[in-house]
C-alpha cells in the first residue's frame, strides 16, 4: 500500500467510525435527531444520550485505542519481539491487582479505582525493571520480557486468591473491569487520558529514532552511539505508563497493543516516526468499532470491550497474514 493512501484511509476510517459511534447505540435515533441533539435542540433525553453519554464514550474509546496502539508499537520495536505488548509485560497484571485490592478495600467508585489500577501498574513496571537490572544489568530485552510475564503470572494468582472469598457483586465488578469497558466515560476522564496520551505519545515520538536503532539490535545501537540499556529502559517505562493510563480509564482491553502495530507494519510502514502515529490511528479505530459492537450487539446489556476487540481484530489480522504469505 502506498504511504499517502494509508494515511488517508486511516484518518477516514477513524472519522467514519467515530461518527457511527455517536449516531448509533442502544437507543435508535434518526440522523436528524442526533444532529439536533449535538446542537442542543430537541428532546432532553436525546441530548443527554448523545452529548453526555455517547460523545465522551467515543472519545475515551479512541484515546484508549490510540494509547494501546502506540504503546504496543514502541514495545515491540524496542524489545525486538513481535509478541511484546503492554499486557504481556505485567502492566495489566499489576493494574488488575491494584484495582482488585481497591475493590476489596471497599473503594469501588469510578474515581478511586483507576488510581489503584495505576499504582498497581506502576509497581509492576518498577518491579520488572528492577528484576531485569538485578539479572546482570545488561540491556537484555529477553530478561525484561520474562520479568514482565512472571509478574503477570504472579498477579493473576494474587487476584484469584483475593477474589476467592469476595462477595458475588464485588467479584462481578472486578471481572467486568478486567474485561474492559468504556461505559463509565465522562469528560474529566477523557481530559486526563488525553493529557497522558499526548505527553507519553509525544515522548515516544521523540524517542522514535532510538526505537528504530534498538530494533536493529544492541550491537548496532552501540555502534551508532546509542546507550541501548538506557534508551530501552526509557521506552519501556513511558510506554508502560501510557498503557497503565488506558487501563485506569477503561480496564483491561486486550489484543490492541499486540495486533495493531503488526497491521500498520503490514501496510508498509516501518520507521517508528510514522509507525507510532499509524498505530495510534488504527488502534483508535479498532477500539471505537469494538465499543460500538459492545453497545449494540445485545441490548440493553453490554458486552465486555476487551472480548470484542479480539473478536473484531482477529479477522483483520488473518487477512494481513494471508497477504504477507
Amino acid at each position, binding site marked *: 500500500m502506498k504511504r499517502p493512501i494509508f494515511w488517508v484511509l486511516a484518518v477516514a476510517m477513524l472519522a467514519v467510525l467515530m461518527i457511527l459511534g455517536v449516531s448509533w*447505540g*442502544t*437507543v435508535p435515533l434518526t440522523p436528524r435527531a442526533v444532529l439536533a441533539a449535538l446542537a442542543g435542540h430537541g428532546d*432532553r*433525553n436525546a441530548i*443527554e*444520550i448523545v452529548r*453526555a*453519554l*455517547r460523545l465522551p464514550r467515543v472519545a475515551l474509546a479512541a484515546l484508549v485505542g490510540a494509547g494501546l496502539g502506540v504503546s504496543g508499537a514502541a514495545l515491540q520495536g524496542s524489545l525486538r519481539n513481535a509478541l511484546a505488548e503492554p*499486557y504481556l509485560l505485567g502492566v*495489566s*497484571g499489576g493494574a*488488575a491487582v491494584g484495582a482488585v485490592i481497591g475493590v476489596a478495600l471497599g473503594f*469501588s*467508585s*469510578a474515581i478511586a479505582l483507576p488510581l489503584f489500577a495505576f499504582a498497581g501498574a506502576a509497581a509492576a513496571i518498577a518491579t520488572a525493571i528492577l528484576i531485569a537490572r538485578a539479572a546482570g544489568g545488561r540491556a537484555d530485552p529477553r530478561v525484561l520480557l520474562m520479568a514482565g510475564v512472571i509478574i*503477570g503470572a504472579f*498477579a*493473576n494468582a494474587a487476584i484469584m486468591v483475593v477474589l476467592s472469598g469476595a*462477595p*458475588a*457483586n464485588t*467479584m*462481578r*465488578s472486578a*471481572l*467486568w*473491569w*478486567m*474485561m474492559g*469497558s468504556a*461505559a*463509565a*466515560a*465522562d*469528560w*474529566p476522564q477523557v481530559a486526563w487520558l488525553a493529557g497522558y496520551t499526548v505527553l507519553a505519545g509525544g515522548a515516544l515520538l521523540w524517542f522514535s529514532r532510538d526505537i528504530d536503532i534498538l530494533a536493529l539490535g544492541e550491537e548496532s545501537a552501540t555502534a551508532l552511539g546509542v546507550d541501548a540499556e538506557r534508551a530501552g529502559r526509557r521506552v519501556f517505562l513511558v510506554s508502560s505508563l501510557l498503557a497503565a493510563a488506558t487501563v485506569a480509564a477503561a480496564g*483491561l482491553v*486486550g*489484543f490492541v497493543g499486540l495486533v495493531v502495530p503488526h497491521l500498520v507494519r503490514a501496510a508498509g510502514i516501518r520507521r517508528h516516526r510514522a509507525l507510532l502515529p499509524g498505530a495510534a490511528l488504527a488502534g483508535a479505530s479498532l477500539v471505537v468499532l469494538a465499543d460500538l459492537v459492545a*453497545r449494540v450487539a445485545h*441490548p*440493553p*446489556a*453490554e458486552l*465486555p470491550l*476487551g*472480548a470484542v476487540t*479480539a473478536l473484531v481484530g482477529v479477522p483483520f489480522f488473518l487477512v494481513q497474514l494471508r497477504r504477507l504469505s
Partner: protein
Amino acid sequence: MASSAFVLWRALAHGHLLPGTVPFVRCARAVPVLALCVVACRAASPRRDAVSADDFGEPVARGSAATPSRIVSLMPATTELLFAIGAGPRVVGRTPWDLWSDSARRVADVGVGLRPNIEAVLARRPDLVLLYATGENRAAAQALRAAGVAVIALRIDRVEDFRRAARLIGMATGDSARAAAVVDSVDRTLARVRSRTAGLPRPTVFWHVWDAPIITIARGSFLDELLTIAGGRNIYEDLSQPSPQVSLEDIVRRDPDVILAGPDGAARIRASATWRSVRAVREGHVLVVDTSLIGHPSVRMGEAATVLAHLLHPAVVQ
C-alpha cells in the same frame, strides 16, 4: 490474563448475583434440558406428588418419621424461614450472608452457599442441608446425599417460590402448621399493601442493584413483584431474567420517575457525572432502600413491600 478472566466472566454470567437472593441470568439452552429431566424424573416415579419433590426433582422425606435435628441452611431465604417457623434452635450452619435474625448470627458460618465447602458442611454433622437449586450445586447435593445427609435443593426467585419452599421445609422439619401460618401472614401483609396502593398513580422505577456493570431487577425476581405490589412500575418489567445487565443509555430512554438504590449505590449515583443524564437523578428522585431488609425472598417480604410502598407513596402509606 484476559482469557482466564473471560472464563471467569462466563462462569459468573451464569452464576449468582446476590448469593441466595437474586440469582441467575438463566442459560436459555439449559432450560429445555432441565425441563426434559424433570419430566423424565416425574415419569419414572408417577406417584410422587409435585409438592414433595425439591427443585432438583429429588423426593423430600416427611419430617414426622425422622425429624431433622441438625440443619445446615445455605441461603439467607431458608435461614430466615427456619427461624420464623421455630426451627431456629436446630440450625447448626449458615452462609456469611445469613444475618437475620440476631439469633441466626450466632449460628456457625460454614462458608458460601454456591459450590459450598462439603467438608465444612459435614463437620457440622447435619441431618438436613438446604441449598439453592442451581447446576453449580448439583455436585454438592449428590456428595451430601452420598454421605447420608438429606438434601433439599430449592430455587427461590419469586414470591410463589417462597410459598412452595415454606410448604416443603415445613413438611420436612415437622413444622407444617407454623410454616403455613408464616406464609399466610406474608400473604396478608402483601394483600394489605396491594389494596392500599391500588388506584394510586404508579411511578416508573429503575431499581439499581450494581453499577459496574449496571445490574437491575426484572420480571424474574420477587423484587419486581414487591415493586408492583408497592405501587410502582419497573421500567424493566419486560425482561424475563431476575437480574439483567443494562446500559445507561437505555435507562435514559426508559426515563424512570424514581431510582431505588442501596445506600452506597445511591451515594455513587448522586456523585456521578454520567448518571446525571437520567432525569430522575437530575430531579433528585434517588431513593435509598434498606438492602439488608429488601434482599431475600423470605418471611420479611411483607415488611419490605410496606417500606417500598412508603418510599413511593409517602403521603398515603405510613
